[in-house]
């Protein structure tokens, strides 16, 4: 009569089934599995003449990029808007059990770490006046890996040293921790959190909703990049705090989603507090001057910079003076951020099927690449609304993401996009 047997049996059965499944997994050869996971056949493509070729990632990439650009420009083109140029960004990485999943190769954790590194470098390249700090979530608690700082390498070093994942994830603990830090930073700084979230749940000590409100009240903009699937609480968090919530489909996509956070975000009116920041413009020490730099504690001949306030010697800029804490920058560092103030308008697609399409320019104005497809048909191209010059897709991306000038407009005496509103 004893019901317990059944139970026991049932459990056992399940056990076996599971094992069998695993066996199937193992039966696959390594190289087979590689295909199964990467689904590389999907990236096979035939061109019009039936020739086989790897998928034209260029076109796809461009398409994605266009979408992104449009989504940004919808707000920005209408009127020029402020950008959060001075950012205090906490990057929170979920190293909970879920991060050991291997749907990203070799593992979510590894991939996340890799791209966070790339992100950090890009971030400081685009925001020389900003700061980053790293936080990891393990075993249901958040831990501060690095404090807010301006040197990419120190962060990356710390991150790579602290890999490995375990336990549950707790969004609330992470947010609480960050909130604790970000509340102290000066008001003009833009407070941001970027969370790489692997887990599908959050195991919190209390009501996370209150924490979210707390973040909202102290103007912390929280964004999440999900690695597994969309989670309600994350979307809610981002909505409430004016951040963005995206979920990565694959590694490439994840990289893109991350890098979207590198350029300074448009400043939210109610968040933005403008202020004057005291900064020092150190002079390069004359050649032949010998002094012990305050960062390495070794005598440097020439080179280096001298803090205008406390006369301490620092090796490179931008930095915060070791001694008196004055922010030290050089004028080019400011200049680096100017393009955020004068963004260039997105280019318009030019449909190749225009009535007089044969009259269209035959080469990209920027790089001279022919814009004519086989059979003398005009190829894919975009045109600058100001100077009406035509560009190839690659230039389009390069111009908007790295160069930040329209070569066409710059090559004309009139219609400087830069000058004034």
């Amino acid at each position, binding site marked *: 009569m004893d019901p317990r047997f059944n139970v026991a049996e049932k459990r056992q059965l399940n056990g076996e089934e599971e094992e069998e499944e695993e066996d199937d997994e193992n039966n696959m050869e390594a*190289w087979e599995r590689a295909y199964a996971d990467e689904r590389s056949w999907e990236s096979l493509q035939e061109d019009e003449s039936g020739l086989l070729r790897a998928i034209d990632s260029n076109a796809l990439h461009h398409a994605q990029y266009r979408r992104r650009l449009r989504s940004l420009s919808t707000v920005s083109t209408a009127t020029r808007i402020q950008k959060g140029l001075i950012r205090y960004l906490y990057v929170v990485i979920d190293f909970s059990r879920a991060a050991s999943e291997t749907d990203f190769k070799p593992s979510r954790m590894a991939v996340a770490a890799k791209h966070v590194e790339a992100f950090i470098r890009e971030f400081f390249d685009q925001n020389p006046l900003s700061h980053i700090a790293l936080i990891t979530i393990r075993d249901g608690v958040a831990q501060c890996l690095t404090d807010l700082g301006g040197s990419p390498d120190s962060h990356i070093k710390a991150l790579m040293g602290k890999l490995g994942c375990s336990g549950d994830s707790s969004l609330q603990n992470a947010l609480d921790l960050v909130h604790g830090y970000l509340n102290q930073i000066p008001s003009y700084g833009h407070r941001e959190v970027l969370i790489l979230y692997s887990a599908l749940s959050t195991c919190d000590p209390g009501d996370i909703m209150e924490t979210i409100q707390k973040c909202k009240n102290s103007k912390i903009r929280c964004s999440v990049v999900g690695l597994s699937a969309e989670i309600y609480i994350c979307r809610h968090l981002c909505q409430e705090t004016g951040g963005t919530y995206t979920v990565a489909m694959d590694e490439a996509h994840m990289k893109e989603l991350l890098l979207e956070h590198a350029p300074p975000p448009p400043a939210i009116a109610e968040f933005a507090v403008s202020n004057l920041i005291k900064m020092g413009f150190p002079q390069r020490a004359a050649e032949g001057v010998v002094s012990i730099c305050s960062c390495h504690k070794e005598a440097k001949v020439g080179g280096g910079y001298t803090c205008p306030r406390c006369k301490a010697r620092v090796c490179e800029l931008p930095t915060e003076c070791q001694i008196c804490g004055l922010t030290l920058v050089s004028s080019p560092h400011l200049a680096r951020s100017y393009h955020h103030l004068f963004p260039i308008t997105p280019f318009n697609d030019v449909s190749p099927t225009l009535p007089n399409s044969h009259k269209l320019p035959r080469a990209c104005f920027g790089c001279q690449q022919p814009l004519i497809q086989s059979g003398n048909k005009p190829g894919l191209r975009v045109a600058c609304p100001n100077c009406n010059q035509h560009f190839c897709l690659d230039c389009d991306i390069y111009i908007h993401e790295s160069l930040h000038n329209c070569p066409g407009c710059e090559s004309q005496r009139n219609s400087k996009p830069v000058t004034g509103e």
Partner: protein
Amino acid sequence: MPQVRIIAKNFMDMVAALPELKLDKLYENTFICEAVLRSLPPLAKKYVLQLLFIDAPVTAKSMEEWVLADGLSKHRVAIDRLIQLRVFLETTESGALPREPMPSNITVRLPTLEELDVYALEQWELMDTNAQLWYIMREYISNSEDRGEDPADLISFLLELSFHATGQAYNLNTLIDVQMHTLKDLADLGLVKLQQGRKESWFIPTKLATNLSMSLTDSSARKEGFVVVETNFRLYAYSTSKLHSEILRLFARVEYQLPNLIVGAITKESLYNAFENGITAEQIISFLQQNAHPRVAERTPSVPENVTDQIRLWETDLNRVEITPAHFYDEFLSKDVFEGASDYARENGGLLWEDSKKMRLVVNAEMHAQMREYLRRQK
């Protein structure tokens, strides 16, 4: 391939090896000057350029002022080369007097053409084409004297050829007959392509010819790879070239061929074919590596290790059988005779094989005499 690498360092070594007079004579030819200039190491090129219009001797020291600490060795090499080629002449007060190796008007060359490459390459299979080319040209030149030709003339002609625009037709009757004769040989080598017109005929230099003047760095010969080899011995070649598919067939089983993709597998059989044709495993491997598709070229190793190892193994397999001349004994009178014989053979370490049921022996030929002796004694 090794032996080639060793011999034909590059063309300029030969030029440098020429006696002073001949060398100076060569320099009267613009093409030679440019060829020489191009063959120089980067630093040397720069030096030549910057001393172009200097007519007074320049002290070696003042040259060294420009060199950074870790560049000195390169600097030395460059200077030596220049002196070796008599571009710089050492003068008593330990300075180098530059001569002018380059008249100020030299034409711009045009890009080369696909099909000509293929035509040229058909003569040259697995090995680094330039390597072979130099190998042969070197032979060709060195025994030119035997054919009663002046190597200097030959060299200058070859170099001149190398500055002709690839794919341009040049009229044959502009040439002296020595050159005509040479040209025929070159045609066989695939350096030029001869074309018979109605009354006139032309020759068309191929890429190989125009490459002649370039010193033998892999760089000059290297092109985008196209082969992907996978751990499961499958092989994908993204190429439309007939030549490529032919080369692959030499050592791989081509399974099917799409317009621009050749899919094959490296099998024991296919490799044995290759080995029989005297192609070595090393050659195959290095071919696969040299032509690795950019995607896989990034990785190291560009060809999976298990594949390369297996290829080497299979090659060694061929040399596994060892032949020992031996004698076969049977029809023993009795069991014990047989056993006696086999024991005897065994003791003397000559026994190769025995079958006691059918009473047969195979014994090393060296022992044949003793065996016969032994057997006779048994009788």
